[in-house]
């Protein structure tokens, strides 16, 4: 597996060099500040590089081939901010991809990218604080994120429970910014859907055992369990939950859509487990990302943030193409609307799609990017909404149970708000 990854990375490097240099004689740098020293952070960086490679195969963006300069944030705000500042000042980037944790993205945004006028696009930062910051007009429209899932996902969780007729639910959530947000939103959505929340328990990282937390949730005797966890602590918590006789009715956030989680819990215990996620649109080209990913990395794109990271890189590059050569960060940020226009020409998320987008944009048209997480469309605060899917685990990966279009998602969320 490791070897395959290294090989893939080498191959990626070769393609960048060969096609990039032939197609263009100039190079534009973009920055990426991602936690590559963390196990789940590395694939997020790999998939961003993969998007860059595809764009270079299509002849680059904004008239130049693209070089992604990758820096490690080590999930440390100091290190991440310094890396971002170095990328902006020393490499002269106009677009920054990153970071993953909101606690790193936020200081980068306030102290580096906004003062320098650089567009920042995060794959995975979910904190609602960004929305507030943007509402106060402090991001200058330079902030975007492709992580649609907090609001959409909690609503879908409530829908699953309502459809299944589960009357009471206990929640286990990861005790970080994302988990605390999820716990608050899902509890509100359950309440709105008339489902009782019997317990809402925080799970801290890296504990050897979660017996105390699991017992607390178990004593309330819920019909079902909602899990807003990552695979590492998710598998320990769920194993203890099941071994203590907890119900196998489970609702999983998209972060648990991982082979590691399925294998270590055991598929036989996950028969009643339903997951939620944002989805690709129902068009033929929707599987482009999945197929390309499988061809490249030899496995399904299961893992937190992969599809989001790919879309973040692709949209940023499309916007660079739309803004033209030597555009400023603000110009590129303004061009994002042109490449995620719901009335634009639909394009797929691959090399061919990027080529098609180039032609359309050159003719002065707009495009609708159909990405790995769906027809991504940003609102005024740089937040996204997306179609949703309910999924379950199978032998080979995951399988879709139900699909909800963007309109249906929006309608359901509106019905909860009443």
């Amino acid at each position, binding site marked *: 597996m490791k070897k395959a990854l*290294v090989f893939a*990375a*080498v191959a*990626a*490097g070769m393609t*960048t060099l060969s096609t990039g240099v032939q197609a263009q004689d100039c190079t534009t740098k973009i920055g990426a500040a991602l*936690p*590559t*020293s*963390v196990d789940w952070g*590395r694939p997020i*960086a*790999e998939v961003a590089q993969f998007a860059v490679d595809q764009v270079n195969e299509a002849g680059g963006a904004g008239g130049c081939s693209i070089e992604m*300069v*990758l*820096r*490690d944030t*080590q*999930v*440390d*705000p*100091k*290190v991440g*901010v*310094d*890396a971002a*500042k*170095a990328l*902006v*000042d*020393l490499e*002269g980037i106009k677009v920054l991809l990153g970071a993953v*944790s*909101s*606690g*790193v993205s*936020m*200081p980068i945004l*306030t*102290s580096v990218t*906004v*003062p320098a006028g650089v567009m920042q696009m995060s794959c995975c930062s979910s*904190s*609602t*604080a960004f929305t*507030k*910051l943007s509402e106060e007009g402090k991001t200058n429209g330079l902030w975007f994120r492709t992580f649609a899932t907090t609001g959409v996902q909690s609503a879908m969780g409530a829908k699953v429970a309502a459809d299944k007729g589960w009357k009471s639910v206990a929640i286990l959530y990861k*005790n*970080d*910014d994302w*988990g*605390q*947000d999820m716990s608050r939103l899902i509890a509100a959505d359950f309440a709105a859907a008339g489902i009782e929340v019997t317990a809402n328990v*925080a799970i*801290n990282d890296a504990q050897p055992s979660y017996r105390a937390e699991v017992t607390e949730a178990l004593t309330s005797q819920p019909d079902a369990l909602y899990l807003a966890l990552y695979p590492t602590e998710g598998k320990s918590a769920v194993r203890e939950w099941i071994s203590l006789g907890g119900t196998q009715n489970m609702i999983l956030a998209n972060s648990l859509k991982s082979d590691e989680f399925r294998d270590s819990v055991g598929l036989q215990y996950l028969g009643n487990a339903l997951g939620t996620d944002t989805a690709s649109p129902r068009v033929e080209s929707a599987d482009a990302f999945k197929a390309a990913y499988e061809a490249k990395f030899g496995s399904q794109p299961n893992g937190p943030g992969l599809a989001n990271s790919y879309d973040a890189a692709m949209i940023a590059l499309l916007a660079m193409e739309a803004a033209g050569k030597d555009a400023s960060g603000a110009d590129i940020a303004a061009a994002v609307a042109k490449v995620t226009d719901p009335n634009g020409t639909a394009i797929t998320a691959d090399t061919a799609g990027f080529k098609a987008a180039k032609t359309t944009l050159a003719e002065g048209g707009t495009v609708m990017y159909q990405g790995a997480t769906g027809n991504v469309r940003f609102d005024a605060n740089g937040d996204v909404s997306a179609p949703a899917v309910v999924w379950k685990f199978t032998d080979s990966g995951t399988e879709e149970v139900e699909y909800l279009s963007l309109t249906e998602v929006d309608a359901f969320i509106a019905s909860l708000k009443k």
Partner: protein
Amino acid sequence: MIGVISYLVFFSTIAAILAIAVLGLNLQWGNTGLFNGGVVASFGAGAYGTLILGGTPQDGHWGGFELYYPLALLGGMIFAGVLAWVVGKLTLRLRHDYLAIATFGVAVAFENVMRNATTVTGGAQGIRGFERPLQSLIGSGFTYNLMFLIAVLTCLALVYVFLERLTVSPFGRLLRAIREDETAARSLGKSPDKVRLAAFVTGSVIIGLAGSLYGTFYAFVSPQDVLPILTFQIWAMLIVGGAGNNKGAMAGAFLIWGSWTFSGWALSRFAPVEVQLYTGSIQFVLIGMVIVGMLLWRPQGLFPERLVVSQPGGGSRGKTQAEGLT
């Protein structure tokens, strides 16, 4: 070129803020021999204190008193000092490794309180600060960063001068006496407990000042800023620079933070494509090796402690440690 200068200004600001924290730790460990394993608690107290006092009101959590900036800064330092006083009262009877473990525990507890006390500290989402002082006048560009650097360097210089005066004063001599042999100090009619507490609180207030400046500069602080890694970084700076020497403490801060960031930059620029994704791990190995190498070959640090004869009136005579021992 302007990019390089702009980056260096930014880098120096962070390094200077960390240098202030290292100076605080140097007073505790280098001069008094207190093994503080919870540096990050004081640092975090300063940052959170300042941002809560000076911040703008926000939905969902307490705070946002919009105090005049110098008051907020002072408040952060006082918060760090009060925390240190309470912790010191409880733990300073412990010696060496026991003290280290107890203070480390306090730091971990501090992080967990910040992470879970959502209504006070914003929880894991962190707390958003206020627009940096005078930013509306100067703007947020390079000039502002330069002004901020000058302000931080001024703080650093003030702390340095204060600590240098303290070291050569009779009180500095008393600190070293307690560090070397507490029983002997007691036999001379000194009261080590009070003095240790005073040194611990003073050092923590200085570390709190560093935290306040850090929070001000980023206008944001979250539990991720107060993880134990920061304690480790600040200790590494002191060990490499030279415990007991204030110049060494500052040099260590610039050196370690410099190698931390430079190795990241160098790896991202020069490492071959296939190892790019592993640069984070390589960086950790490199930095670990620098510290181990330092401990093996120059355990006294780059700038060894100078023994001084402290006299009232400030007359002092410096010797290197080697001379003093002969």
